[in-house]
């Protein structure tokens, strides 16, 4: 959603609620701002390198970027890019991230775009800064620039050891006014920092407890807020009695229209006061639940858009010797970061400062400005470390709540959602339906592919297999634009939005056809793939895994799946054991091969892969939001089960060397195959085909019983 859309949404919200009491209206909620479904092609990043880089008199380089460190290691990888292009030691680069006053504008941290899209911007800035420094050194040293060498934060003349000057001396803390046109970034072959493991810049703070998150900002006089919440989405407040809150000494009640909060100098005592508030709500939501939602989604989804088409479906159908029609389902999935949405806001003198756990500080700045009636320039959003995001911290309702309350309280206010609020206001990965009709010709080749996805979105929906007659249609998505009432609560991006759903459906269907054709599923894929990058990741995964050709189900419990994600190619193989009596699936081993072009930080990429594979076990096996009539039935981690240590498979990561292709992302791609690869392995183990995620023990048992 673009910022302009957010403003419009806010106005509609105000128009609908003006003078009519208290409403919880999700559909027009300005806080539902999300990662754009299609990232802007040419973001308006500043072109002056001074916006990103400052070289201090002490020789240290400070790099200012609007991206945030969610745990994905970008603080380190971005510093590596700067150190490389500027030719300074990595440990002399300091990162300032996600501060809207100090850092140039950024759209937000999502889509695995930090390196792919923003990397070139930052590299360009650093490369230009280095060229300017060399030019300045040439004047200072009286030597031709072409002869000079920049390294380790200095420029020297190889022909005269006396001629050497540090960047710090050249700059002396001043802004560099000079600019050069079209400075090329370094050739990959000259890399010394990029492409190698680097110590994480956040390590020391994180292992000592010193890393500050939004809730750790200790501002004097802070009040902690607990907010009156509806029991269900769609419920409206009828009346509220806050009189007993005062039984907890030191409590204040703050009301700002629909926002009713108790505040106290201690969060746990605010919580006690909230327990004394009684509020009566009227529920109005339709009777949707986690079982009937799928028919509802198909019925209410917006008209489908064709996102890919070639040949003729009629022709393909005529050529088909066998036709396969299947419907794939997955439920809503929560982000469930261990850090809940948190913010501290201070409003004084017509200005607001907000410390927020968010993936999109500049978006939050606009939301807070809108809510307070301030100009965005009078709002500063500071993003400390963020305790996990996964797409769920793209909007920041809690920051707006803190700001509204702080304005009325006249003191800083901290809002930290409890776990129940986190589940309630999460913008879930949408439940989705995929219908596929495909056909195999007499020659054993796929001749027909008719694909329609409801509610998940179109990202990577189009099949990359060689099929002469195909069409891909997407109806609705996670990025906004859905008709009112389609989802009973907020939905949004979840690590690799759209693509977990699309990959599960596509790769399951491919496996079904391979089994029918009696062909090994890897071999079947390779027969329909001409893209060399995809063939290479599959072959690399197979080699490491020790893939043995065979027709599924072989009883061995081995599965394969492959996918593309915004420029990255990924192939995953897994080995599972299924307890046929209980239906319980245990994933023993996962091999994940990726081609992401240039690998900026191989250890960081491995870490992202391990994390994604582990997290992916959750949506594959257990994670599904249960709800009824707008009420989210999870209040805590006891009923919503995320992966644990005992689930851990052996994880092996293969990073394909492809230094001639620019870097793409790695935080999301390795998760996208997890649903499909486990489903395919379960089929190989048992002969049972699971068409719905998650593959809970009960569902697996049921599928085995059905044969």
């Amino acid at each position: 959603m673009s910022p302009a859309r957010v403003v419009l949404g806010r106005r509609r919200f105000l128009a609908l609620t003006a003078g009519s009491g208290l409403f919880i209206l999700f559909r027009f909620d300005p806080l539902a701002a999300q990662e754009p479904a299609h990232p802007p092609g040419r973001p308006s990043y500043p072109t002056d390198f001074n916006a990103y880089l400052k070289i201090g008199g002490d020789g240290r380089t400070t790099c200012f970027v609007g991206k945030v460190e969610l745990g994905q290691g970008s603080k380190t990888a971005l510093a590596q890019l700067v150190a490389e292009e500027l030719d300074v030691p990595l440990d002399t680069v300091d990162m300032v991230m996600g501060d809207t006053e100090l850092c140039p504008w950024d759209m937000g941290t999502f889509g695995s775009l930090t390196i792919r899209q923003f990397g070139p911007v930052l590299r360009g800035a650093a490369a230009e800064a280095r060229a300017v420094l060399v030019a300045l050194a040439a004047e200072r040293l009286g030597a031709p620039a072409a002869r000079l060498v920049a390294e380790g934060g200095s420029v020297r003349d190889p022909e005269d050891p006396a001629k050497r000057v540090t960047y710090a001396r050249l700059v002396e803390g001043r802004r560099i006014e000079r600019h050069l046109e079209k400075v090329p970034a370094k050739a990959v072959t000259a890399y010394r920092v990029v492409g190698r493991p680097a110590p994480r810049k956040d390590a020391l703070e994180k292992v000592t407890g010193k890393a500050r998150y939004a809730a750790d900002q200790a501002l004097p006089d802070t009040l902690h807020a607990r907010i009156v919440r509806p029991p269900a989405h769609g419920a409206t407040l009828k009346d509220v009695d806050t009189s007993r809150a005062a039984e907890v000494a030191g409590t204040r009640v703050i009301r700002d229209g629909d926002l009713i909060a108790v505040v106290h100098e201690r969060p746990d005592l605010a919580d006690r006061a909230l327990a004394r508030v009684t509020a009566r709500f009227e529920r109005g939501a339709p009777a949707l639940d986690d079982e009937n939602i799928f028919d509802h989604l198909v019925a209410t989804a917006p008209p489908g858009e064709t996102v890919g088409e070639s040949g003729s479906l009629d022709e393909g159908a005529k050529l088909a010797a066998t036709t396969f029609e299947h419907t794939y389902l997955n439920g809503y999935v929560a982000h469930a970061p261990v850090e809940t949405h948190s913010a501290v806001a201070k409003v004084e003198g017509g200005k607001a400062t907000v410390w927020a756990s968010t993936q999109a500080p500049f978006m939050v700045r606009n939301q807070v400005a809108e809510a307070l009636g301030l100009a965005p320039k009078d709002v500063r959003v500071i993003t400390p470390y963020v305790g996990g995001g996964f797409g769920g911290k793209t909007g920041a309702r809690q920051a707006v709540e803190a700001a509204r309350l702080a304005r009325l309280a006249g003191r800083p206010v901290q809002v930290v959602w409890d776990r129940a609020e986190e589940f309630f206001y999460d913008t879930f990965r949408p439940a989705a339906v995929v219908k596929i009709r495909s056909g195999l010709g007499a020659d054993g080749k796929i001749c027909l592919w008719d694909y329609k996805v409801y509610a998940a979105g179109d990202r990577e929906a189009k099949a990359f297999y060689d099929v002469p007659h195909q069409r891909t249609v997407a109806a609705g998505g996670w990025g906004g634009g859905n008709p009112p009432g389609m989802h009973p609560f907020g939905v949004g991006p979840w690590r690799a939005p759209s693509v977990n759903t699309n990959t599960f459906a596509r790769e399951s269907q491919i496996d079904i056809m391979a089994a029918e054709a009696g062909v090994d599923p890897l071999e079947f894929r390779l027969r329909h793939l001409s893209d060399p990058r995809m063939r290479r990741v599959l072959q690399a995964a197979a080699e490491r895994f020790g893939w043995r050709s065979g027709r599924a189900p072989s009883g061995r419990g081995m599965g394969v799946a492959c996918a593309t994600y915004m420029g990255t190619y990924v192939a995953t193989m897994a080995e599972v054991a299924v307890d046929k009596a209980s239906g319980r699936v245990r994933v023993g081993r996962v091999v994940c091969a990726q081609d992401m072009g240039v690998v900026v930080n191989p250890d960081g990429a491995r870490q992202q892969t391990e994390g994604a594979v582990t997290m992916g076990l959750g949506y594959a096996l257990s994670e599904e939001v249960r709800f009824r009539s707008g009420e989210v039935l999870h209040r805590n981690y006891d009923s919503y089960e995320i992966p644990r240590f005992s689930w851990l498979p052996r994880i092996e990561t293969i990073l394909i060397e492809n230094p001639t292709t620019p870097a793409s992302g790695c935080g999301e791609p390795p998760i996208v195959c997890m649903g499909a690869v486990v489903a395919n392995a379960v089929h190989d183990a048992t002969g049972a085909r699971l068409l719905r995620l998650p593959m809970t023990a009960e569902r697996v048992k049921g599928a085995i019983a059905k044969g």
Partner: protein
Amino acid sequence: MVRPISFTLNGRPVQLSVDDERMLLWVLRYDLGLTGTKYGCGAALCGACTVLVDDEAVRSCATPLKDVAGRRVLTIEGLSPDGELHPLQRAFHDGHAFQCGYCTSGMIMSAHALLLRNPHPTRAQIVEHLDDHLCRCGSHVRILEAIESAAKSGPGGAR
């Protein structure tokens, strides 16, 4: 009930006069300013708030202050009082056994309690000990490796 309560915190005596039914987590974070201990669930389900009380790992979000009267409380801030990293911290640091870092304090403190009791645990014992600790980033592999490495580096990683 508001009454004076004394305990040892990170090796130093502490006396507070607060409601002793309050949970230790909130007192640590907002009365004593030790924010390294994190809130994650408030119901002893995630482990982010883990601290040691008399060398046992406890969930501070579910431990009333009165339960620590006269006892020894150790938080992440007390693990390296002289600034030199504890072997577990060193192992988590060097092995990048974290991503977002939010669960890290709890993981390290829980592992510390394990190694005090069992200096050389098997992988299965570590898994069992940490199975009710949640990490959403998926740092599990490296956390296990870090604890094994710390256990090797000294007598149970303890000093």
